[in-house]
């Protein structure tokens, strides 16, 4: 009974982690560095949606959901703006470093710096306190015997699934998608084939930003926003993308789900005191036994 509930909770947490992990995975494979500022894009996405919600309101609850179409519009807008923000950060910081042929470690440290600045700008604008999209409180539905989920959570799961499928199709069939995958395989070969590297990088940032924003809004829906909301998920994001095998979409998604499940099930079997250590543990196990990740290929 409890097991089923824990698995359902784990899948939900996992879905949010997966959306964020896709961006981290892109960063590792296409941009070739560990972008520790990625978690801040989640935070920014959530807060940008809040701005729209503050103007338009969360909307009247539609169907069983705690919000209306306004929230959906806010999410789309936040995805767009966060995509642009990610690109802007690249223009201001990472592109310059790339051009000077900086060591990958320099990029990592620059990412730490960018993360700090981004987080504190959030504090500066919206303050240290917590915010809510909506003060509505939903009562969970019993979707399966012993499994209770909020309508919002079911919506989040459905939307995540749709996004992942769309992304898969995009990467497989669109020109940009194919170019992105080519970059991931071999940047120099991609360049030799006439792929515009800067354009691919731009699209990678925008896509990562948009996905992060969506994850951020989902995070904010369950149930509050605060300046450290993205940061507290950073390790889980990296664990998920490394677990799945960097650069692989399916890998990031499966990795996210596994991390989410590991966190939630650990409470059941080991005790909640160790919950925060679970991403570390998963990460260590993967690095020991399958360093290339579940879906990665040996290099």
């Amino acid at each position, binding site marked *: 009974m409890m097991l089923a509930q*824990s698995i359902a909770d784990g899948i939900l947490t996992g879905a949010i982690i997966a959306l964020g992990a896709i961006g981290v995975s892109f960063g590792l494979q296409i941009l070739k560095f560990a972008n520790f500022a990625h978690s801040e894009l989640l935070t920014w996405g959530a807060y940008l949606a809040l701005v729209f919600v503050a103007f338009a309101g969360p909307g009247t609850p539609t169907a069983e959901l705690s919000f209306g179409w306004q929230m959906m519009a806010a999410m789309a807008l936040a995805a767009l703006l966060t995509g642009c923000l990610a690109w802007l950060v690249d223009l201001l910081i990472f592109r310059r470093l790339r051009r000077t042929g900086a060591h990958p470690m320099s990029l990592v440290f620059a990412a730490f710096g960018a993360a700090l600045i981004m987080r504190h700008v959030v504090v500066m604008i919206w303050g240290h306190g917590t915010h809510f999209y909506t003060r509505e409180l939903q009562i969970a539905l019993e979707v399966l015997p012993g499994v209770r989920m909020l309508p919002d959570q079911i919506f989040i799961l459905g939307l995540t699934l749709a996004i992942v499928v769309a992304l898969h199709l995009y990467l497989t069939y669109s020109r940009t998608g194919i170019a992105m995958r080519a970059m991931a395989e071999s940047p120099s070969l991609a360049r030799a084939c006439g792929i515009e590297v800067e354009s691919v990088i731009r699209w990678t940032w925008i896509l990562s930003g948009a996905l992060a924003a969506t994850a951020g809004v989902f995070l904010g829906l369950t149930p509050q926003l605060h300046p450290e909301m993205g940061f507290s998920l950073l390790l889980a994001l990296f664990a998920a993308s490394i677990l799945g095998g960097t650069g692989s979409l399916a890998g990031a998604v499966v990795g996210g789900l596994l991390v989410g499940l590991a966190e939630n099930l650990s409470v059941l079997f080991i005790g909640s005191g160790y919950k925060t250590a679970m991403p570390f543990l998963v990460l260590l196990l993967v690095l020991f036994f399958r360093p290339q990740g579940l879906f990665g290929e040996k290099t």
Partner: protein
Amino acid sequence: MRKWIALSAVLVAAAVLAPSDAAAQASCPVKIGGVLPLTGSMGPITKKIAESAQLAVEHINAGGGVKGCPVQFILRDDQGQPTVGVDAAKYLVEVERVQAFTGTISSGVTGPIISSITAPSKVVQISCCSTATPFTLDGRSQGYFFRTLPTSKTQAVATASEMARRGLKRTAIIYVNTDFGQDMTRFVKLALPKLGGDIVAEVPYTDNQPSYRAEVTKALAEKPESLLLIGFPKDAVTIVREWLSLGGTQKIALNNSMRVKDFVDGVGGRFLNESFGMDNAQVAGPTVDAFNKAFEDKYKYDSKGPGVHTQYDAMMVLGLAMNIAKDLTGPSIKDAVRQVHAAGGATVGTGPEEYKKALELIKAGKPIKYHGATGPIEFDANGDVTGPALVWKIVNGEIVTDHVISIDQMQALFKKIDG
């Protein structure tokens, strides 16, 4: 060879400098050492606390000092850092040879001072402000540590009694996995069954998590009929919302940190009409007023602020105990601290006149009962004091005081629980 010479030199020096019992006998002035975070993040609140200690020393000296000697108070800064604090305490105990000690604020500094300086040197230490219960319970203090403010035990016991009074059954406890959360949980677990409640689940949580559904699910699995949530407001909002969403009851008991509007607004006041919480209550009484007036007269501003009243009492208790003690050795002073509030004693209050009165009673071999700036000061077996608690509740989104649990009622509760 050189090493051996150095070592023997140290041994000789140690032998020469070792205190003899004769040296511990009253030699004027009597020294009381103090360590407080005068600078650092707690500097601003410490200013008044240090002034309060100084005021107490003046009252002690004006009222007759200790065994005919004036008291010299030597205060050092700990900067809120354990290493600095331990160094300062070491200097006071080993170089200045203080006969009693007061300090400090942060439990993180007080703990190391007890275990590495005052307890091994058998010097009585009284703190105004450190609440971590293990200090007085885990044996590290060997009975040499006391404090003049209530520990988390008071809040825990008050919470348990209110839960029992409201007839809450099958309680699930969700608590923050820190010293504070564990402390509170341990005492509630001790108290609640004896008062008529029962606990069906205990789930710790780590702060700053995006979601606590797993913890809430675990707590709900035991089909609890009430919840005790011990933690801090931000995460508590997430937990309570998830708790209610997943079908948890609205009968929720909360700790003092949740007595803020942010928490109530975050959850939504309409879901909290059956909730209540606990906090320390302010004491009133003539000895409290006398202290407040003396403080205002001297410093020209009011005595409001954390630790100001409890620090005064810490000093006064030391002064009185050192007079009661047959000599000024640690073990004697330690035993005397407990006679500062003796059964059947004559009540003595704050200020130099009352202190003088106390000394006359002590000289005549009569028991005293000290009522200080925080009301009656009576140490329990562990060296802790009890204070009154207040019960608050939420009515239409506003936090209101429900009732106060007096010290006498608290004492009765402790008796019932500790047996």
